[in-house]
């Protein structure tokens, strides 16, 4: 029955509705797959077999009783470990939260449960979502299913790898500077960062509050739209949540899949190409533009001059907010508590000892950066200036979207690199997110769809950006490109991935 794991989530949902399969069978197939391959991939930090099977059994019983269920009811999902789950350990990839079991569910988890989607477990990630390779997890590396010696991207490497390795049909990621889209690109999966405020942040362990956004990680554009529709929408518990209803995303994906983009104006961002982009990445990008053109889209070049300052602004705003958001991890109320080895055990010294032992190097680096940037006397020069750059970037987007419907670029400048390659060079690591960061700074939505293999045989991603609240455009254009690409490949890109060894 392990064939089940190869289906799209959309097909799984249809077969559940028609009674061809049960959710228990489907969920068990994925648990089996996890047992088979996760020792090699290590996408999961926690597998919640009992919980998932019980939720699956419940859905099957309700379906048998004739209840009307959510379209995705019974389709299992994996959740990035930065999202709090009631009764299920949540670590955010950090030692400082080892063993912490939250007493409440994130809003998006409530929505998954309410839709009857069994939660398979929690996926690995860079500690507190800080990184682009998942090498900063306190619980070991996640391996890219395309090449186990390579990184799966980050911070959401676990969710992307789980989906790419058929351990889960769907997963939840979070994206502060590219943590959904870049892992999508390097694992040959689809990842979407919704409009800021489109998905509730209540229950997301915050890195940078003004940038964080949760979204779908899937194997197809339609599946992403379906999952996005489950988790999106207004949440009164998140003050920054948009009041709008979720747009018709799966309809947009189905429309796009028909292949007609006549009248759609696509802008190529000049600043997100050229130097630093791997040759194979650039070649696939150009080929994809040709496919869009062939589908009837009009391709134009667009200048976004402030984008070249995006990385610098991001690395001031993000650590500033993170330094404050991470202050609560102090050993006083939850999680790790470390007493100083010698000297008096005072609150202050316990806090210092706990944070010293509980946080990894990258987290400490960003806390120090942020603390410095917010300090009296430096605030205007650093945080203040960065906010001004942010405004300029938003204006660049506004100007661009006045003349085009979507903007496009390669998602990531390179394919997956080998473990350790950039670990000691933070700047090189940060550059992975050069193309994805502008969307977070402006709050606009972005999607990465696999668009082929580079010269090294590793997957490459194509990024589509749309104006705030126009997430439906991502799905229409993304699905159109996906359909054209898959027509050429004769199937999904992941079919070309090497088979993982079954280790049982």
């Amino acid at each position, binding site marked *: 029955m392990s064939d089940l794991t190869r289906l799209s989530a959309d097909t799984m949902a249809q077969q559940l509705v028609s009674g061809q399969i049960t959710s228990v069978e489907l969920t068990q197939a994925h648990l089996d797959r996890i047992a088979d391959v996760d020792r090699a991939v290590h996408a999961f930090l926690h597998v919640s077999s009992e919980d998932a099977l019980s939720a699956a059994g419940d859905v099957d019983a309700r379906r048998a009783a004739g209840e009307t269920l959510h379209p995705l009811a019974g389709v299992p999902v994996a959740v990035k470990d930065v999202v709090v789950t009631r009764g299920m350990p949540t670590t955010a990839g950090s030692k400082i939260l080892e063993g912490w079991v939250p007493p409440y569910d994130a809003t998006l988890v409530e929505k998954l449960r309410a839709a009857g989607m069994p939660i398979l477990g929690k996926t690995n990630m860079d500690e507190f979502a800080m990184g682009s390779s998942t090498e900063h997890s306190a619980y070991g590396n996640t391996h890219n299913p395309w090449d186990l010696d390579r990184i799966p991207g980050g911070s959401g490497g676990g969710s992307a790898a789980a989906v790419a390795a058929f351990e889960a049909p769907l997963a939840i990621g979070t994206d502060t500077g590219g943590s959904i889209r870049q892992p999508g690109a390097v694992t040959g999966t689809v990842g979407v960062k919704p409009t800021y405020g489109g998905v509730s*942040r209540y229950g997301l362990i915050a890195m940078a509050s003004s940038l964080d956004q949760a979204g779908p990680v899937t194997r197809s554009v339609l599946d992403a739209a379906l999952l996005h529709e489950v988790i999106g929408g207004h949440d*009164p518990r998140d003050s920054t949540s948009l009041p709008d209803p979720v747009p018709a995303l799966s309809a947009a994906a189905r429309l796009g899949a028909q292949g007609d983009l006549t009248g759609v104006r696509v802008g190529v961002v000049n600043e997100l190409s050229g130097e630093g982009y791997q040759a194979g990445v650039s070649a696939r990008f150009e080929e994809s533009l040709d496919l869009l053109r062939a589908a009837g889209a009009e391709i134009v070049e667009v200048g976004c001059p402030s984008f070249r300052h995006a990385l610098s602004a991001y690395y001031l705003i993000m650590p*500033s907010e993170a330094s404050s958001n991470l202050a*609560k991890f102090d050993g006083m*109320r*939850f999680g790790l508590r470390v007493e100083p080895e010698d000297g008096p055990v005072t609150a202050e010294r316990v806090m210092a000892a706990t944070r010293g032992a509980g946080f990894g190097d990258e987290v400490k680096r960003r806390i120090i950066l942020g603390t410095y940037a917010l300090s009296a006397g430096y605030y205007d020069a650093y945080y203040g200036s960065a906010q001004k750059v942010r405004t300029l970037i938003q204006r660049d987007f506004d100007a661009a979207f006045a003349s085009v419907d979507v903007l496009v670029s390669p998602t990531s400048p390179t394919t997956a690199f080998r473990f350790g390659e950039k670990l000691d060079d933070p700047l090189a690591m940060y550059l992975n997110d050069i193309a994805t960061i502008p969307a977070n700074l402006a709050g606009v939505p972005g999607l990465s769809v696999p668009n082929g293999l580079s010269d090294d045989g590793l997957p490459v991603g194509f990024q589509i950006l749309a104006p705030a609240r126009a997430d439906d455009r991502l799905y229409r254009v993304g699905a159109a490109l996906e359909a054209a690409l898959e027509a050429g490949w004769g199937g999904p890109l992941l079919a070309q991935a090497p088979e993982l060894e079954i280790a049982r």
Partner: protein
Amino acid sequence: MSHTAPDLVDYDEAVARFDPVIGIEVHVELGTLTKMFCAAEVEFGGEPNTQVTPVSLGLPGALPVLNGTAVEYAIRIGLALNCQIAESCRFARKNYFYPDVPKNFQTSQYDEPIAFDGYLDVELDDGSIFRVEIERAHMEEDAGKNTHVGGSTGRIHGAEYSLVDYNRAGIPLVEIVTRPIEGAGERAPEVARAYVQTIRDIFRALGVSEARMERGNVRADVNLSLRPTPESPLGTRTETKNVNSFRSVERAVRYEISRQAAVLDAGERVVQETRHWHEDTSTTTSGRVKSDAEDYRYFPEPDLVPVAPSREWVEEIRATLPELPAARRRRLQGEWGYSDPEMRDVVNAGAMELIETTIEAGSSPAAARKWWMGELARTAKTTEVELSELPVTPEQIGQLQSLVDSGRINDKIARQVLEGVLAGEGSPEEIVSARGLEIVSDDGPLLEAIDAALAAQPDIAEKIRSGNLGPVGAVIGAVMKATRGQADAGRVRELILERTT
């Protein structure tokens, strides 16, 4: 910890040689049903850590949502203090590590307060008005409550361990900051006390807080500095924290004036620091040194959107503001016809509401004042209770006065009836009928008594007959005595004159 008592300069001498400048920060806990940023219910005296949510515990993933009622209350306060209300303002994060702050930052307004540029006219004991300029009123959340166990001081240093109760964490506060209060001179302590008292009365009148000082609903931090003359630049200030009664506010200012004068006289510099107030000894001791370089790394709270109260809403709130205490006092004084000193005595005695209700119950303003400021004030003083704590209601006093006004009892009997009321014998009506105190209005017994009195003193009767009315009073007195006071003196006089003409 032992302290050597610091040198103090005699207060009068200190204010003769130095000009004090005060600044007061008042924190008021708003009486909302739930906390500032979450739905945890707020109730005084709950079991520790029962009034909490993931938000007020600062759990990972939790997000704040602003309490709309708290914003409305803050605007009410701002309007009552004659402030401008911001068109748009933000919260900021004040970052510092302390176990009673669950997120290790306090969500507080910083450079964008909801209300600013106001003033409060404060009435001093002699009836003069002192205007205190208000710099700002801003919203923030309270911290949890630490209890330091073990050690002698009750403070964190020397404690064996500390307990934290997060019930208080996240309770909405409004902090009202004055501009430097200059020109109060020797009356600085009185101005400080009167300001806190006035603003506390306003909180109650607005219905935004129970404003009970003893529960810590209202807390005052008192800044004080001295300078040689009013023309000199401001001196270095100290901030005496958590001075939580009106009397203590006055005393704390007095004490710091004497202490700082001694420091300056000794040629030393006042240390800029916070100071602890000691209620028992009425002294302050050094707290933590506060330098301007203290860095809270404020930045705009990214989890909250700006607060932008519409002008329509602000005007709606303004229209529903109740009459404020000072205006009400002025109105009542006019209606009652009291002189300034009379009204001041009434207010200082806490008798204004009592008199108002007494008048509503049928008494004249003059009679109401006579009861509460006379007989009852004396009783309260001898029994050492507040007027409002006496076992008599304003309604009963109103009834008592009605009995007098309708001629059913006279003033002297009324005092006996009041004693009965205070002794718990019942209402004035009940006591009058139970004790048979009603005035004798039947002329028969009165005439008998008059005839007896006139017969007993024939010379007096003769004088009256000849037109000398001087001795009438003596005859009335004799009749009153004979009737045990239960006669209407007016009627007795009429009858005497009838009998002697």
